[in-house]
């Protein structure tokens, strides 16, 4: 289903989505982030600082509450997410491609109840990138593109005074059907214009990983390479690159205690991070990935080798956040290219 949406009718579409909580990019303290929409929907953002992964995989998820009952077994009460149905506008195609990768992780062999409960309640309305939102975009290097529909329910393309809106999935059709009257049929010139816009977007120069399909083999051959320590010498071991990554999914589980006698509390999942010092700390004190070099290898290996070996696609979607936000300039494109060049 392909329609035309006049830019002036965008708010009408959002308003018509009454049984959804509509989220869209908005700026708070200079940071673009997804916020519930109250007022006009803004799509003039570059890209949000954090990817939309929080809608299906929030930083904090309560699993269950536990309560000690005198003389009885502790009582567990499962706490399933009560997330409303979300319609998230302004999702960039690279973040869209992160969604199937996260779906894969949380459903391969074992289904994650909490992730799936949230995931089936989210519809992603993508916005194609007419020009790269960041200086460090490299989606084309990892099989993506500024107009990819992978993982999105709808893809909107900005044609100046109107959007070309294409439904990708049934959920997308349903979103558009909620406000059928705000759309109009695309004319032949609209079709031509959107093809031109897409062609121009794809042709726009961007940074590149050199021959990315050889990356898995090159990385595999460089496990013991001294380059890792050298490339990570400036790394400070913070969590920016992974917490802001659309496809990082590692988590930790902790119990939060609210009362000691009788014992009462919650078991909670929180994001975790392979760049943190104690991520691989054994209870003996041995840490197989002590230095930042080994941790950089783990992150880059996961993005360009391990995931590829398991699922046949790179885990990295080329959004460039880890490059842009690294306080000391660790650059994953530079790392993969350098390691590949010097691979045995």
């Amino acid at each position, binding site marked *: 289903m392909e329609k035309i949406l006049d830019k002036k009718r965008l708010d009408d579409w959002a308003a018509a989505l009454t049984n959804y909580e509509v989220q869209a990019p908005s700026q708070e303290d200079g940071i673009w982030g997804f916020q519930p929409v109250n007022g006009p929907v803004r799509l003039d953002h570059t890209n949000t600082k954090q990817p939309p992964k929080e809608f299906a995989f929030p930083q904090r998820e*309560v699993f269950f*509450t536990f309560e000690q009952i005198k003389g009885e077994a502790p009582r567990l009460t499962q*706490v399933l997410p009560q997330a409303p149905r979300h319609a998230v506008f302004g999702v960039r195609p690279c973040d869209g491609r992160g969604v199937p990768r996260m779906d894969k992780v949380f459903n391969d062999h074992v289904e994650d109840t909490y992730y799936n409960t949230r995931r089936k309640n989210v519809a992603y309305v993508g916005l194609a990138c007419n020009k790269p939102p960041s200086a460090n975009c490299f989606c084309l290097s990892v099989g993506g593109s500024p107009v990819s529909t992978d993982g999105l329910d709808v893809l909107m393309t900005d044609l100046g005074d109107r959007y070309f809106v294409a439904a990708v999935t049934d959920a997308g059709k349903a979103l558009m059907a909620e406000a059928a009257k705000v759309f109009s049929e695309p004319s032949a010139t609209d079709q031509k214009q959107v093809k031109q816009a897409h062609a121009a977007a794809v042709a726009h120069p961007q940074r590149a990983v050199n021959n990315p399909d050889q990356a898995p083999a090159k990385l595999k051959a460089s496990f013991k390479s001294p380059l890792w320590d050298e490339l990570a010498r400036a790394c400070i071991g913070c969590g920016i690159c992974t917490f802001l990554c659309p496809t990082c999914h590692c988590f930790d589980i902790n119990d939060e205690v*609210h009362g000691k006698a009788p014992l009462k509390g*919650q078991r909670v999942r929180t994001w975790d991070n392979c760049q943190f010092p104690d991520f691989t700390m054994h209870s003996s004190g041995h840490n197989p990935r002590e230095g930042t070099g080994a941790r950089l290898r783990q992150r880059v290996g996961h993005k360009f080798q391990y995931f590829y070996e398991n699922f046949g696609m790179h885990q990295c979607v080329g959004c460039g956040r880890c490059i842009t936000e690294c306080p000391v300039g660790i650059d994953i494109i530079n790392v993969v290219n350098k390691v590949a060049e010097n691979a045995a």
Partner: protein
Amino acid sequence: MSEQQPYEPKIVAFLCKWCSSAGSDLAGVSRIQYPANATPITVPCTGAVSPMYILSAFNKGADGVLVSGCHIGDCHYLEGNYLARRKMYLIMKLLDFIGVEHDRFRMSWVSAAEGAKFAQVVTDFVNDLQPLGPQDKLKRAESK
């Protein structure tokens, strides 16, 4: 709840063992009546009170935090209360800076002989906390 109990502020009081804790004992021995809102935590010296104790008390739900110790010059360890004076000044200013009500944190000097003053300090503190209501700025959220 049958009828709305009046709001009773919860106070965490770090009392130095040598003076203020002894002062509070004297208040008890002398049968002085004063509000029982303060949960005393005895510390060797106010100099031993780390700002983290105060932040943690607020984090766990305290409505007010009191730090009380020996008057300047009386410190059993000679300099403990001088060092405390600086640290507590800094944490007080930081709490003010982020917007926590000024009256939620208080420091006092109460010697072992000042049972009456201790009772008065706690009474004044409870009265000042009453209008502020429960502290929810730094408090950890209970359930989801």
